[in-house]
């Protein structure tokens, strides 16, 4: 279980995370949603110990995250974290050597499925292939908690669809995925829980099964939680249209 309690993180004077409380059970498939700058990445990097935080605690199966247990966490990021000069095959060897629970069979299966070249340096891959490889490594590290931060940015829809199916097919019941993404509608079908973050605070936390029971779509729930004003765009457009276009127009009207 991953327990985040009263987590607070500042960037200078700006509060990036404000008293975040979140408990994640093994086997959950969680979508972490929020606008740009909401704190999704900061939350993930704090969990991974990449960022120093000012307040709160993060416990992984009852213990603070240290080198001893950090192998239980894997991370796929749109920044990419592979070794650009290494081939996928060499990545496999590196992970096998350093992560006890590395899933070699899954690794080769996924490389074959996505038809990624095994012996070319990853730097020579296309952006889509790099994203695929990044996600593959996070799925194969053998971690119990797989954190993904916008992993599909730049991949086409078919590719993403394939990945969602693969994800659902290969995950074991104890594997937990926390997926930060803007693609709410695409991922809503396979998530077990959605967590909404806004200005560093958790503003929504719901089980998708509960939403299904209520007949509310995840997108509607997100809009509702964010107090999204559907008429915002039309109002703005009306305002733009009502504005005088040139200084000459202004003079004429006045």
């Amino acid at each position, binding site marked *: 279980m991953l327990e985040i309690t009263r987590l607070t993180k500042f960037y200078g004077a700006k509060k990036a995370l404000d008293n975040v409380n979140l408990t994640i059970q093994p086997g959950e498939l969680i979508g972490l949603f929020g606008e740009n700058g909401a704190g999704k990445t900061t939350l993930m990097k704090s969990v991974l110990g990449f960022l120093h935080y000012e307040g709160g605690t993060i416990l992984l199966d009852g213990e603070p995250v240290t*080198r001893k247990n950090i192998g239980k966490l894997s991370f796929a990021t749109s920044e990419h974290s592979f070794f650009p000069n290494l081939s996928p095959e060499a990545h496999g060897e590196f992970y096998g050597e350093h992560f006890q629970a590395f899933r070699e069979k899954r690794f080769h299966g996924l490389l074959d499925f996505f038809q990624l070249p095994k012996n070319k340096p990853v730097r020579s891959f296309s952006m889509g292939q790099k994203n695929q490889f990044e996600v593959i490594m996070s799925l194969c*590290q053998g971690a119990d908690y797989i954190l993904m931060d916008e992993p599909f940015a730049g991949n086409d829809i078919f590719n993403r669809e394939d990945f969602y199916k693969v994800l659902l097919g290969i995950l074991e019941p104890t594997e937990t995925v926390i997926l930060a993404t803007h693609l709410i509608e695409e991922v809503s079908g396979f998530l077990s829980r959605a967590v909404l973050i806004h200005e560093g605070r958790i503003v929504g936390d719901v089980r998708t099964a509960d939403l299904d029971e209520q007949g509310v779509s995840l997108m509607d729930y997100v809009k509702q939680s964010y107090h999204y004003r559907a008429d915002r765009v039309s109002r703005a457009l009306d305002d733009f249209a009502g504005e005088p276009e040139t200084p000459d127009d202004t003079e004429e009207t006045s």
Partner: protein
Amino acid sequence: MDKRLLRYLPPGTDTKAAMKNVIIWLSFASACNIFVFAYRYYHAWEDLYLNQIYRWVLRPDAQMPDFSAVSQGTLLTYLTSLLLLAGTALDNYRSFHRESVSSYVMRRIPDAKELHIRCLTVPLCAATLMTALMIALLFIERAVYIAFTPTGCLGDTSIDLFRILSMRG
């Protein structure tokens, strides 16, 4: 060899190029050391003699400068190479932030020493090897100084590192 060496370099480093660089630095620092010593020794030795057209005549007051004075400047390339090796170590750390943030993987590896082993081992080994080589050269050059300087003209043969490293004549 390549495979074993890979463990001591950032993943994906060209081991042959890395070894070539180390060998080039070692050779360059040694060559410069030998050249500077040979040049300074020869001129000091030459000054012992009245150079006449067909024969060399030892000056009556001939006195060779001390070994440490003759050796001044021989370790400059060594010091430069040490700085370059320190730069290499820093560059190894920076390589984990180049084109991707692979430091995220290194920070998830259970062994905290792994990153430092991969960044520091080769520069430290090269620095150690270079230091040993420079010490050996210093003793060889001292032997040359003693062997080729005429008896009675020898200066102080002790090795004064501060003086050797100093730029003042």
